[in-house]
C-alpha cells in the first residue's frame, strides 16, 4: 500500500521488478510508474542490479581448503555447529525505545544501582571517600571483609587506572598496588592519592599472597573523577564505557545513556550510544531512524559554527556513517578530509583508500609508500596502520620493510610483549629474519619465567596469572623449536619442543609439535604427542584409527596402549593444575517453574555440574543458547549435569520461550538473587564448572571448546576420589 502522493520504496519496486507480487499491487505500481520518471529510473537500476547478481564472480573455495579440513578432522579437530535458528531477544520494557530519552532516564537508574547487601554474599564492603573525587584527590578507604577474606590480615588494595587516552577493553591496561589495608577490628583502612591523569579507576581487595580476591562479584568498586559538583567528567564516563567492553554490556549501555544525559551536546556521546544500540540488540527501526535524525540535527548545528574542532568533525562524519545516512556521511567525510586529514577517523578512511587502490591496482610498493606517507599522522591509529602495512610488507619478503613495520606495531600495540612474541614467531618462518626471531623468542621465554606485578590482571590470582603466562611461554617454545630444527639443530629443537609440551593442555600445540617431530623423523616423539591428543575426550575414535598403521609399523600395540593410559592420566592432572577453587554457598536457594524451592547444595553436591546464568533480555546470552544446549547434550551424555539459572520469575512468556527453543537443560529461577551472589556472578551470560564438592573450578564469559574437556577432567577427578 502506498499513497498516491508518495513514492514506493526500493524494496517495493524490487518486488515489481521481479514480478513477485499480486496483480492488484502490480497494477497500482504500474500506474504510478507511468507518471513517475524517478521511479522508472529506480526500476531500471533494480533490473540492472538483478543482472549484476547473475554476473557476480563465482569465487570458488580456495585450493587446499578441502585437504586442510580432512587433515584437521583426522587430527582430532571438532567444531560445534549452530543447527537451530537463533532466538529473538526480548527487550526489557524500560529499554524499548519509543524515544531514546526514556532509555536515558532508565539508564540513570541502572547506573546508580549498586550491589545490595544480601545473605550468602562472599564479597565484603568497600567504601571510598570522597565518593566523587576531583583529579588527584586523596582517598580514604574502609573495607569490611565478607566470607572470602574474613580473618585475613593485612589486605592489599589493587586498582586498574584509566586515563582519558586509554582504549576500549582492558587488555594491556596495567594494574597497580595502591595501598595496604590494615586494622585490628572488623574493618581495614588505608589512604592513597589518585594520580592526576586518572579519570576512572576500579578496585579489588586481596590477601597478601594474591590467592584470594574480593572483586565485588566481578563488579569491582569504582571511582569516577568529577568536576567538583559531583558530576562525572565526560572522560570518566567515556573510560567507564571502555572498561565495560567485554565485561558487562548492559552497564556499558547504561554508561552511554548517562553520557547523553549529562553531556547532550557532545556528539561523541551519541556516537557511543549508537554503537551500544547495535551491540545490545536494541537497534530497531525507530532507534535507527532516531540516530539518523540526530546526526542531521548535529550537522545543521555544526554547519553554522566557525569553531568546529577536529574531534567534532571526525565524530560527525563517523556518526553519520554508522547511523546509515550515506549522503550526510559523504558530505562530512569530504569536509573532514579537507580540514582535518590527521583526525583519527580521517586517518582510518585514508587507510581504507590505500587498501582499495591496492586491491584495484595490485601495486604493493605504491601501497607501502602511501602507508609511509600516512605514518607521521597516524597518532592514535598507529597500531591499526602498522598492522595493515605490516601485512602488506610480509608479502614482499623484504626483511627491511618487514622489520620496520613490525617494530612500529610492537611499539604502538596495546600489549607490546604479546605482539613482540607474535612478531618473533613470524620472523622464524623467514630465513633472513629467523635468527632475530629466535633471539626474541629466547628473551621472551626468559621474561615469562617471572611474573611482574603489573602484568597480573585485576581480579586474577597469582596462580591464574602464572597459568596464563605459562601458556604464553609454551607457545614461544613451540615456535622456537621448529626454528632450531630448520637451522639443522635437531637435538636442541627436539628438546625445546619437549619443554613446550611438558605442562599444560593445548591440543593445537600437541598437534603442531607432533607434526614437527614427525618431520624431524622422531616418530616415537610424534606418537607420544598423538597419544595426548587421543586422550582428549573431544576427539573421537577416528583419531586413533588413522594412526594405527603408523603405530603398528613403528612401536606396536602394547607400547601405544601404555602411552595412551599415561596420556589419560596426564589429561586429568594437567587440565586441573592451577585451577581456581572458589566455594559456592550451598544454602543459596532457587526455584523451579512450579515455585518449588531448592538449595544449591541439593542440586550440585556430589556431581560435576555446568551452571549457566542467562537472561531473556541479554542478546549475547540468548544468541549463545542453541550452542550451549548442544554442549549441554554432550556433557550430559558424559555424566556432567547442566542446569541454567535465570533472574526472572516464572512467567507464561518465559514458558513459551523455553518450549519454542526446546532447551534440554533445566531452568531455575533466582528470585531472591541468592544464587547470583553465591556464584559471585555479575552480568550474563556466565558459565561455571563446579566440582562434586561444590567448588567453582572454571568460569567463562563465553562457552569455549575447552569447557567439554575441563568438565570431563573434573568428572574423572570425582571418579578417582570415589565421589
Amino acid at each position: 500500500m502506498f499513497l498516491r502522493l508518495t513514492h514506493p520504496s526500493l524494496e517495493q519496486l524490487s518486488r515489481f521488478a521481479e514480478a513477485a507480487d499480486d496483480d492488484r499491487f502490480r497494477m497500482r505500481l504500474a500506474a504510478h510508474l507511468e507518471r513517475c520518471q524517478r521511479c522508472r529510473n529506480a526500476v531500471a537500476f533494480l533490473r540492472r542490479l538483478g543482472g549484476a547478481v547473475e554476473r557476480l564472480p563465482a569465487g570458488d573455495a580456495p585450493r587446499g581448503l578441502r585437504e586442510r579440513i580432512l587433515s584437521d578432522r583426522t587430527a582430532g579437530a571438532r567444531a560445534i555447529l549452530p543447527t537451530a535458528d537463533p532466538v529473538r531477544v526480548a527487550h526489557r520494557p524500560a529499554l524499548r525505545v519509543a524515544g531514546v530519552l526514556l532509555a536515558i532516564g532508565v539508564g540513570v537508574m541502572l547506573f546508580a544501582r549498586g550491589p545490595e547487601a544480601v545473605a550468602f554474599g562472599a564479597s565484603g564492603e568497600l567504601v571510598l571517600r570522597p565518593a566523587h573525587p576531583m583529579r588527584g584527590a586523596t582517598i580514604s578507604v574502609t573495607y569490611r571483609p565478607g566470607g572470602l577474606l574474613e580473618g585475613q590480615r593485612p589486605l592489599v588494595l589493587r586498582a586498574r587506572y584509566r586515563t582519558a587516552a586509554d582504549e576500549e577493553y582492558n587488555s594491556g591496561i596495567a594494574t597497580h598496588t595502591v595501598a595496604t589495608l590494615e586494622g585490628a577490628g572488623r574493618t581495614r583502612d588505608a589512604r592513597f592519592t589518585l594520580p592526576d591523569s586518572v579519570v576512572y579507576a576500579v578496585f579489588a581487595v586481596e590477601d597478601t599472597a594474591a590467592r584470594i580476591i574480593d572483586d565485588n562479584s566481578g563488579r569491582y568498586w569504582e571511582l569516577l573523577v568529577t568536576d567538583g559538583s559531583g558530576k562525572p567528567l565526560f572522560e570518566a564516563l567515556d573510560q567507564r564505557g571502555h572498561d565495560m567492553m567485554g565485561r558487562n554490556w548492559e552497564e556499558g549501555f547504561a554508561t552511554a545513556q548517562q553520557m547523553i544525559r549529562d553531556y547532550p551536546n557532545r556528539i561523541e556521546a551519541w556516537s557511543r550510544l549508537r554503537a551500544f544500540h547495535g551491540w545490545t540488540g536494541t537497534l530497531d527501526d525507530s532507534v535507527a531512524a532516531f540516530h539518523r535524525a540526530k546526526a542531521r540535527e548535529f550537522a545543521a548545528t555544526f554547519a553554522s559554527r566557525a569553531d568546529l574542532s577536529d574531534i567534532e568533525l571526525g565524530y560527525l562524519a563517523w556518526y553519520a556513517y554508522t547511523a546509515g545516512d550515506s549522503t550526510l556521511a559523504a558530505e562530512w567525510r569530504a569536509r573532514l578530509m579537507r580540514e582535518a586529514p590527521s583526525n583519527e577517523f580521517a586517518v582510518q578512511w585514508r587507510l581504507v583508500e590505500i587498501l582499495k587502490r591496492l586491491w584495484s591496482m595490485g601495486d604493493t610498493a605504491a601501497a607501502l609508500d602511501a602507508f609511509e606517507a600516512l605514518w607521521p599522522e597516524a597518532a592514535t591509529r598507529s597500531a591499526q596502520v602498522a598492522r595493515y602495512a605490516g601485512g602488506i610488507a610480509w608479502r614482499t619478503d623484504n626483511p627491511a620493510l618487514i622489520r620496520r613495520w613490525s617494530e612500529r606495531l610492537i611499539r604502538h600495540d596495546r600489549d607490546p610483549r604479546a605482539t613482540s612474541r607474535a612478531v618473533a614467531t613470524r620472523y622464524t618462518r623467514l630465513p633472513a629474519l629467523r635468527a632475530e626471531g629466535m633471539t626474541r623468542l629466547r628473551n621472551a621465554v626468559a621474561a615469562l619465567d617471572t611474573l611482574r606485578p603489573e602484568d597480573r590482571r585485576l581480579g586474577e590470582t597469582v596462580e591464574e596469572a602464572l597459568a596464563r603466562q605459562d601458556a604464553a611461554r609454551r607457545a614461544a617454545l613451540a615456535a622456537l623449536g621448529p626454528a632450531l630444527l630448520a637451522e639443522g639443530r635437531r637435538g636442541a629443537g627436539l628438546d625445546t619442543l619437549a619443554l613446550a609440551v611438558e605442562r599444560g593442555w593445548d591440543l593445537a600445540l600437541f598437534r603442531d609439535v607432533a607434526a614437527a617431530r614427525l618431520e624431524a623423523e622422531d616418530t616415537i616423539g610424534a606418537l607420544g604427542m598423538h597419544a595426548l591428543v587421543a586422550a582428549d575426550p573431544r576427539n573421537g575414535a577416528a583419531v586413533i584409527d588413522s594412526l594405527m598403521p603408523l603405530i603398528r609399523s613403528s612401536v606396536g600395540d602394547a607400547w601405544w596402549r601404555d602411552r595412551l593410559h599415561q596420556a589419560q592420566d596426564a589429561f586429568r592432572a594437567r587440565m586441573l593444575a592451577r585451577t581456581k577453587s572458589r566455594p559456592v554457598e550451598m544454602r543459596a536457594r532457587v526455584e523451579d517453574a512450579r515455585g518449588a524451592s531448592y538449595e544449591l547444595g541439593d542440586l550440585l553436591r556430589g556431581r560435576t555440574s555446568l551452571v549457566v546464568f542467562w537472561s531473556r533480555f541479554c542478546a549475547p546470552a540468548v544468541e549463545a543458547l542453541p550452542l550451549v544446549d548442544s554442549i549441554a547434550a554432550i556433557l550430559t551424555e558424559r555424566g556432567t549435569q547442566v542446569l541454567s539459572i535465570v533472574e526472572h520469575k516464572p512467567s507464561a512468556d518465559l514458558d513459551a520461550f523455553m518450549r519454542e527453543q526446546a532447551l534440554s537443560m533445566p531452568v531455575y529461577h533466582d528470585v531472591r538473587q541468592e544464587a547470583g551472589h553465591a556464584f559471585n556472578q555479575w552480568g550474563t551470560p556466565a558459565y561455571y564448572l563446579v566440582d562434586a564438592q561444590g567448588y567453582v573450578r572454571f568460569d567463562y564469559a563465553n562457552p569455549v571448546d575447552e569447557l567439554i574437556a575441563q568438565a570431563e577432567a573434573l568428572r574423572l577427578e570425582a571418579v578417582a576420589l570415589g565421589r
Partner: protein
Amino acid sequence: MPGLSADAVDTSVTQAELIRRARAGDPTALAALYDRHGDALFRACRRLTGSAADADDLVHDLFVGLPEALGRYEERGTFEAWLERVAVRLALMHLRSKRRRREVPLEAAAGTAARYRTDERIEGEDLDRALASLPDPLRAVFVLKQIEGYSHREIAKLLGITDGASRVRLNRALQALREALG
C-alpha cells in the same frame, strides 16, 4: 593422508548414503560432501561476510563439525537447504561476534556517491565490491534475499528480527547500492 584422495570418491553414491557414512565418521564421505557443496557454501559465506578469509574459516569449521552435526539433521527439507542454513547461521554468528572497535570494515568501499545512471551495465565485480562495503546487517539481508533466495520470513527467523525489519533493511541496502553503483 591414506584413503582420502579425490579419485577415491565414488560419485555414483547417493547423498543419503554419504550422509549416513559421514555421520558415522567416514572421511571419504565427508570429502565427497565437500566436493558436492563446498564451493556453493564458500560463495554464500563470502558474500555474507564480505571476506574471502572469513569464508575460508567458516567453511573449514562447518565441515570439521559436520559429522557430529549430522546427528541433528532430521531430514526435513533438502539436505542442501539444511546445510546452507547451518552455513548462514555460522556466518551470521561470526558477524555478530566480531570484536567491536571504531573501525571501518576492511573491505569498506564507501566511495564517492555516484550520479544515477540509467543505462550502464553493472559489472559483477563492481557489485561484489559494493556488497563488501555495506554494513553487515544490510549486506546479510541483501545476500540472503536477492542472491540466496530466502523469503523475508525465513530471513527474520535467521536474524532474529521481524519480517518488517527485514524489508526495511533490504530497502536500505538497495539505497546504499544505488548510491554506490548508480
